[in-house]
């Protein structure tokens, strides 16, 4: 099956186009951005804090030394510096005290640019801790001379290094987690979409009763699957109804077509002259008419069921239609010796399709006369209802319809076994049902004790302007 192959190729997912890939990528990017932002804040907060601590230390030390110079002169400050250096085992403190002539009085810094203010400097070879990096504060002394106090920044640099490697680790872990999480979520989405796709493919392949899997959770996928399943149920129902109708039509048209064929074959075999041929031809025309009747009824039912006729609804005199229908069926009732009783309230108007309503009432009376008892009674009544509409009833005193079969007789071609002896297409009540539904009429088949009572509750019926005659 080359076509299926082609379609399968078309449907084959490209990994970069899949939802899973996009979710993974998005997840990854967001995780990385988050980690970077967090590391940045941590960096800024902790190294900034360490540098500020260092600067405070330098400022306080420089202040103390300047106080010593003011009180005890440069000599006492020099002693303090030497004492500090002697006790500084870690070797992170740096000092320079220079006289007015620029010569070093105390300290471990060989030479320093004698400029006031904060600066960062790297020590050259001549100094004690060559290569160290300092944060230093230079202060000119009153009456000449210069004091510089410095601290090694190495601890801050260490902290920075530590933070950097920590950020690296966290970033790496976040990357892995993002990738894993994204893949996991993506795979879940892909799996469920694939499961739905597989199920739909089976439906497409003809397993019309197959349904999408629904988990108990009830997430978006389950809701979607449930919706699709409901839609599939509906489609299946419609398909079955259509198949039923097609089967019915095929079956019920075959019988009269077969009769027509038998009649013509018999004529070919046995007809002996003009009169025989004529009789056979006339019979064949009658058979054709029966077939055409069935088609016409089917088309009318289809029209009524489609609802398209609603656009052409007009207000018409229902009472007059009921009177006419009763009049048209009176001869048939008379032929069967039945009395046709009518009680029709005049001048009731309804909005609808008068042709279809006429046919609906005609079918009901036709049924009542055909299936009612010969010599019995058929009744047609139309009266306004207390609820605002109107109620129309058609009654006969025949065998009626067993309660269990009342739903079935409304279907196309359904005929009760007892009715098979009487002529009819089996479409009369199906049309009644379709027309009733088109007009929002409530159709009820009940018991007339004995016989059938059909009740139509017709909404929107109003007394007309005219006399209704």
């Amino acid at each position, binding site marked *: 099956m080359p076509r299926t192959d082609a379609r399968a190729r078309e449907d084959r997912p490209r990994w970069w186009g899949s939802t899973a890939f996009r979710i993974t990528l998005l997840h990854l990017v967001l995780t990385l951005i988050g980690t970077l932002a967090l590391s940045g804040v941590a960096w800024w907060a902790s190294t900034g804090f360490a540098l500020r601590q260092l600067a405070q230390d330098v400022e306080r030390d420089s202040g103390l030394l300047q106080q010593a110079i003011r009180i005890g002169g440069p000599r006492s400050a020099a002693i303090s510096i030497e004492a500090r250096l002697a006790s500084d085992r870690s070797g992170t403190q740096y000092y320079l005290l220079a006289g007015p002539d620029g010569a070093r009085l105390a300290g471990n810094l060989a030479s320093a640019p004698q400029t006031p203010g904060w600066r960062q400097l790297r020590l050259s070879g001549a100094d004690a801790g060559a290569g160290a990096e300092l944060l230093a504060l230079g202060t000119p002394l009153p009456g000449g001379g210069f004091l510089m106090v410095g601290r090694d920044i190495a601890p801050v640099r260490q902290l920075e290094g530590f933070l950097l490697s920590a950020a690296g680790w966290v970033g790496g872990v976040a990357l892995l987690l993002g990738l894993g999480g994204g893949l996991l979520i993506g795979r879940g989405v892909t799996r469920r979409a694939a499961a739905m796709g597989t199920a739909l493919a089976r439906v497409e392949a003809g397993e019309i009763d197959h349904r999408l899997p629904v988990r108990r959770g009830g997430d978006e996928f389950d809701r979607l699957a449930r919706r699709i399943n409901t839609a599939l149920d509906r489609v299946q129902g419609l398909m079955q109804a259509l198949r039923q109708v097609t089967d019915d039509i095929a079956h019920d048209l075959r019988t009269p077509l077969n009769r027509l064929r038998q009649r013509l074959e018999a004529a070919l075999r046995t007809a002996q002259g003009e009169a025989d041929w004529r009789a056979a031809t006339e019979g064949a025309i009658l058979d054709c008419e029966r077939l055409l009747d069935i088609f016409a009824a089917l*088309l009318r039912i289809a*029209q009524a069921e489609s609802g398209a006729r609603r656009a*052409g609804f007009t207000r018409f005199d229902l009472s007059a239609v009921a009177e006419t*229908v009763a009049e*048209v069926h009176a*001869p048939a009732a008379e032929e069967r010796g039945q009395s046709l009783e009518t009680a029709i309230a005049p001048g009731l108007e309804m909005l609808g399709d008068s*042709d279809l309503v006429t046919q609906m009432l*005609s079918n009901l009376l036709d049924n009542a006369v055909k299936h009612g008892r010969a010599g019995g009674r058929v009744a047609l009544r139309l009266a306004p209802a207390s609820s605002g509409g109107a109620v129309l009833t058609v009654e006969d005193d025949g065998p009626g319809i067993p309660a269990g079969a009342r739903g079935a007789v409304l279907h196309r071609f359904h005929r009760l076994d007892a009715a098979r002896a009487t002529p009819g297409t089996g479409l009369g009540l199906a049309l009644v049902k379709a027309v009733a539904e088109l007009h929002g009429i409530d159709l009820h088949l009940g018991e007339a004790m004995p016989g059938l009572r059909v009740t139509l509750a017709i909404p929107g019926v109003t007394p007309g302007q005219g006399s209704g005659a």
Partner: protein
Amino acid sequence: MRILVVEDDAETADYVVRGLTEAGHTVDRAADGREGLFLASDGGYDVLVVDRMLPKLDGLGLVRALRAAGVRSPVLFLTARTGVGDRVEGLEAGADDYLGKPFAFTELAARLNALARRPPLSAEATVLRVGDLEMDLLKRLVTRAGQRIELQPREFRLLEFLMRRAGQVVTRTMLLEGVWDFHFDPKTSVVETHISRLRAKLDREGAPPLIHTMRGAGYCLRAPD
């Protein structure tokens, strides 16, 4: 009569043309809507038979164009679509009658006769006369040879329908449509019953019959020779 048949299906067209020619009419045939419009536009036909669905220009369009051009020749629509909505649409477009396919030839012939001989609307009479039968439409009175005849409303409508088409064959379907507003066949003998009741009232005491049954075709009301 001069009749134009606009029908694209060759078999149906042959059947209709042959039947009408045999009945003594002069028949032309057009195979599509545009040809039909061309032939009919001079108004030289007594009646047109137009299929609803035609190539190039469909039946509705053809009739609308003819009416817009002032051609008043009566038109009978033939159609395979027998929905009521279609019938109303056709009549609104300017057609005068409507016949669903398949149809009996007698039905078509009777309807064409009725269409072609329809009196112009302006000359609407208030009194109809056929032989010694007289119907006063205003007073709603019917007399035969001066004798008053009492009719039920439906019988009056039926007689009026027949008198307006006196001398023509009127089919059962035409009567169901025109007198009872039934656009389908209820399969009852209501037409026969009413005709026989009407006969009984019209032909009293050995008077010559006015309503004749045309076997296989319908009824005809005509004055005795």
